[in-house]
């Protein structure tokens, strides 16, 4: 890692810091003695009441075998082109997680949006003079679109939609499973603008015996051809109604896409996990037979059970039938307070969070201040559409000092309620349990 060393004279600085602190302590103790002896003031105003400042420990470099106890994953914070400081999972291919505080707003800033690539050869630059989006395969009229074709020949359509990695929160699994050890920050919400996928497909005239539409982006791997390590391909059934909502997006929050989030265009699949949202989308291939590639046949599959739940024993016994992952179950998060600072008894504050569901809008949000024993309705923020983050708030005055466990529970338009137990499957997918935040409340005098 490239780290710059602190300059200056550390030992002197340390001594200066120490002596100043010691002086203050000495003055305080002297003042206390004078006050007790001479002025008769109450002793509890003085130094012995002041608490020890936070210790200087850093996060561990990994978590497990128990659950990751932190909201985000524990990697170092790093700087990538067009990006704010994000949490590093891996550097090649690049995987970066969004820090928690960015979720205070309904739209995640482009520079903070998480990054997840599958193959190590990802674009550093794209020449729009030669780049084209091809539609090929089982079509009567193969087509190639330039960036200006996409933005001028089709009426721009916008949708606010959550993009969430299938493995978001994988580090919460028990027992732990291998894979990207995401905390909760492998998600983001943006306003995506682009050309409707259906219109592009209609222009190319799909042949009647076609079954699937397959997507490929600009990333490539060094593995041998025909393997998942060489190319990343995803496909959707042509009969899947989600295709009617899909966009080929050239704008993200009204800006061109950051290179790491899929410049020049990205597929938007509202309600679906991000594995289908192909970055650097350059080939749309209509297939007339099933897609046997690794990323459909082996990867990104979930048990065909309620919530995609199974057990290690059932997996070992080979009893688990799987299906490709699809829509995102309902989730919600407490964003603030985040437990990093104490709260003050009797001083009101706002609890803030977000909620979303791939099955429709979140229309009910409950908050618990007693670890899920009792629930009250939180106030929902502005509605940006069924596939967007919905912010929520709840005003709270901590009644007295102590430890409190806050919990958040969302209900979506289909009546799905977040459950209060985890899920387990070998891929580490579909985590959507009720999330909690412990807070410490201190005395106010």
């Amino acid at each position, binding site marked *: *890692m490239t780290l710059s060393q602190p300059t200056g004279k550390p030992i002197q600085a340390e001594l200066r810091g120490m002596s100043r602190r010691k002086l203050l302590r000495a003055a305080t103790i002297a003042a206390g003695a004078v006050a007790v002896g001479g002025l008769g003031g109450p002793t509890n105003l003085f130094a012995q009441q002041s608490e020890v400042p936070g210790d200087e420990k850093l996060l561990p470099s990994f978590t497990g075998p128990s659950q990751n106890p932190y909201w985000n994953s524990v990697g170092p914070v790093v*700087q990538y082109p067009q990006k704010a400081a994000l949490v590093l999972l891996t550097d090649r291919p690049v995987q970066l997680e969004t820090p928690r505080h960015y979720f205070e707003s309904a739209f995640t800033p482009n520079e903070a949006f998480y990054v997840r690539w599958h193959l190590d050869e990802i674009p550093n630059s794209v020449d729009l003079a030669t780049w084209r989006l091809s539609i090929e395969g089982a079509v009567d009229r193969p087509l190639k679109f330039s960036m200006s074709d996409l933005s001028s020949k089709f009426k721009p359509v916008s949708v606010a939609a959550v993009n969430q990695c299938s493995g978001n929160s994988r580090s919460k699994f028990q027992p732990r499973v291998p894979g990207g050890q995401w905390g909760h920050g492998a998600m983001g919400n943006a306003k995506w603008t682009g050309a409707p996928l259906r219109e592009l497909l209609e222009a190319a005239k799909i042949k009647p015996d076609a079954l699937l539409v397959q997507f490929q982006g600009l990333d490539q791997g060094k593995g041998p051809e025909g*393997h998942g390590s060489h190319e990343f391909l995803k496909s959707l059934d042509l009969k899947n109604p989600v295709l009617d909502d899909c966009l080929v997006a050239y704008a993200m929050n009204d800006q061109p896409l950051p290179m790491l989030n899929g410049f020049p265009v990205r597929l938007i699949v509202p309600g679906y996990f991000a594995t289908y949202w192909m970055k650097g989308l350059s080939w749309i291939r209509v297939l007339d037979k099933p897609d046997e590639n690794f990323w459909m046949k082996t990867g990104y599959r979930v048990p065909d059970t309620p919530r995609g739940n199974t057990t290690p024993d059932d997996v070992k016994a080979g009893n688990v039938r799987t299906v490709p992952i699809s829509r995102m179950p309902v989730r919600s998060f407490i964003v603030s307070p985040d437990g990093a600072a104490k709260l003050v008894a009797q001083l009101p504050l706002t609890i803030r969070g977000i909620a979303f569901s791939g099955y429709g809008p979140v229309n009910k949000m409950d908050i618990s201040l007693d670890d899920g024993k009792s629930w009250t309705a939180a106030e929902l923020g502005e509605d940006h559409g069924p596939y967007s983050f919905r912010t929520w708030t709840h005003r709270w005055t901590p009644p007295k000092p102590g430890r409190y466990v806050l919990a958040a529970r969302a209900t979506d338009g289909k009546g799905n309620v977040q459950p209060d137990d985890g899920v387990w499957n070998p891929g580490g997918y579909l985590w959507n349990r009720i999330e909690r935040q412990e807070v410490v409340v201190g005395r106010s005098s």
Partner: protein
Amino acid sequence: MRAQVKRTTIWFIAFLVALAAVAGSLVYAQFDAGYYSERNPGAIAQPAPRKETDGAIYGVTAYPLYPPELAAGPGREEVESYCSTCHSTRYITMQPPLPPETWTAEVNKMVKVMGQPIPEDVQPVIIKYLQMHYAVETRKP
């Protein structure tokens, strides 16, 4: 008489100074200040911007690498050479401590499913290294 006044004034000023010191100390005693540490989590140098033209090429600067330090021991070189073809070894250090059989399964997956040509005599060396340093019983902070 004059000397008397002078002495009283001096005592009065001395009393004020003492009072101010006590009052000042009282204020300081209510919070911690000036708490700095030489132990820092590191800083990241800022990258310089690209030089651009008004042509159709859109690009960004190089993506930085953050290679981790793998545990020392037999097999490390084999891991660094064979496991780095397609991905950084952060894929290893990022994992939670895993059961030994999971590491066997991961290496087998890379060979059989992902097509990485690791020679047959090297595969057990890599598996043993991962189990020796990155398994539930063996992983060190």
